């Protein structure tokens, strides 16, 4: 069960590959797709294993990754 989800902003990504290198669970992989600048883009290939640890976002130099953790809905918003 995934504990969270990441969102990759492809317009900011410069294809360095740090997210793939530092994801301990192997959730991110550089794909064969390229951005407008001709740089490789990462794919979130393994969403089920994501633990929302935050490391890919810490190491991303271009702030292209946002991490969200799944939390129980609070009673106020569940209504």
């Amino acid at each position, binding site marked *: 069960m995934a504990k*969270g*989800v990441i*969102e990759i902003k492809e*317009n*900011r990504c*410069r*294809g*360095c*590959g*740090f997210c793939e*290198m*530092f994801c301990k669970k192997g959730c991110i992989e550089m794909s064969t797709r390229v951005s407008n*600048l001709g*740089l490789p883009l990462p794919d979130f290939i393994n969403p089920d294993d994501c633990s*929302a640890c*935050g*490391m890919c*976002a*810490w*190491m*991303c*130099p*271009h*702030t292209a*990754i*946002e*991490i*969200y*953790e*799944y*939390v*129980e*809905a*609070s009673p106020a*918003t569940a209504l």
Partner: protein
Amino acid sequence: MEKKWIAGTPRLWRDIPVIIPFCPGCQHGTAVKALCEVIDELGMEKNSVLVVGIGCYTMASILVDVDSAMIAHGRACDIASAMKRIVGKDTMVITWQGDGDALAIGCEPTIHAAARSEKITTFMINNGNYGTTGGQLAPTTPLGQVTTTTPFGRNQDQGYPIQAAEFIGSLKGVAYTARGAFTSPANYQKTKKYMKKALEKQRDGVGYSFVEILSTCPANWHMSPLDSLKRVEEEVIPLFPLGEFKDVDKIE
């Protein structure tokens, strides 16, 4: 289930309409992100001034959503000293410099701001060459590194690299010096802690604080981003050890 934001773009990161102008694998962006988070954690975004020198990192003045000044090459510490004396102790004055800016052209302003114990904080990003102008020899280039002005590698004839955090820490007016890197998530958190502590020394009015940040420069090292990160870990960190070198609460 709801989604709760954990990490990513800091609150103080300004969303600019052009692409973020750092090369792939360059860690200046990581450093700017850490600065945004640290200022946010201290709650000082309304009364911080960022004084930015000239270099690749100059875009920090646009990316960080605080007041900033872009000033003459190398003179960040001079302008910051004057600003701090004018605005008083409630405003944090931060200089954001590179190794060429702070140690080559700006060596005298940096050293004398430290010697005068100005209540400012300098963050110096060290990537071992002059990144903006195409990778020339810098004061922090390790021996053996190939640059455009040392095509056979730096040898003893061109001197030895300056370990800035240690030597500025030997001055009496300095409250805090440290050196961090972004080679791993653990180092990222440690470097953020050093940056926070340096700003706290300024807030408490202890004295000059200085943090050196090791960064990669894949474009001018002619390496892939992952190889350049490995080079920082294997070659640069043994020469520029990480850690805190001076930490005093009061300058006697």
